[in-house]
């Protein structure tokens, strides 16, 4: 039985259907209508909260642990580039080059 559909294909199917439903729910159910002011204020703070969390996790997170590694140097350099109003492509290049450079040196 289990040979018919491998776990990998089950994962593809279940995760795919769930993600498509999660992404589509808000726009399908609420599309085109303004949100109530209070909900609007709450949702307006979702971007800073989620983006800051993504920065923190992708800089310091590994599998269930926090680490301080070469990524932090790269992201620190990227922060300087952002503060100097560098375009996003340059910000990415700075982060990657500094991180790769630090990995080579240490």
């Amino acid at each position, binding site marked *: 039985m289990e040979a018919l559909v*491998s*776990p*990998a294909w089950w*994962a*593809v199917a279940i*995760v*795919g259907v769930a*993600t*498509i439903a*999660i*992404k*589509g729910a*808000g*726009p*399908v159910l*609420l*599309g*085109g*209508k*303004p*949100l109530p002011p*209070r909900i*609007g*204020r*709450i*949702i*307006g*703070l*979702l*971007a*800073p*909260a*989620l*983006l*800051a*969390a*993504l*920065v*923190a*996790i*992708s800089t*310091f*997170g590994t599998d*269930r642990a*926090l680490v301080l590694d*070469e*990524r932090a140097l*790269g*992201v620190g350099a*990227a*922060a300087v580039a952002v503060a100097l109003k560098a375009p*996003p492509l340059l*910000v*990415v290049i700075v*982060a*990657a*080059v500094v*991180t*790769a450079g630090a*990995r080579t040196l240490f």
Partner: protein
Amino acid sequence: MDEPGGSYSFAHGARKVAPFSIAVFGFGMSFGVLARPTMGSVAPIVMSVTTFAGSAQFAAASILSSGGTLAAAVVAAILLNARYGPIGVSVAPSLTGPWWSRFLRAQLVVDETWALSADGRGGHDPKVIVGAGVVLYAAWVGGTAAGVSFGDLFGDPARLGLDAAFPALFLALLVPNLDRSQARVAALLGAGIALALTPIAPAGVPIVVAGLACLMGWKRS
């Protein structure tokens, strides 16, 4: 061609996302390389076509490849994508038209297109979502296919510092959102919650709980 609602905004979105799409292509390649030994060469590409959410796909593939159960892989991936529930609510007022069109365009909403399409007044430009989304989608699926096909030739993407590209990109997307003091507090709170929960909670949970920092908007700033 510059009038509002013209094709200008599609091109504008495509151009804005270009630097991100280079990193996303590389990230897609590393997903293809990671997934192929356990998932085969077709399933990872189908996953990129249908799921189009990098971190969730990485979590599912790495749990399966380290011998984890199907349930663990699926739950982690769905938790990582749970943020697209409230993100979908935030773009909903900007997406008009028939339900199927809103549904299809909603599939192009990922972290990068969501942040890039923000108009600074709480709304999102639907044409930027589509223009940026199509380019990013092509980069993600194309990168996955390249990684599955000949990723072995390129070696470990971490060597190229690609893993630091993502926090850097998210940082570039975050900074324009920090124009109000309440937003800065929400950002600090979100980052703090995410870091505090990372060692103790399964992948995906820290990001969902960090999103709750937005509830401070209940009170007027």
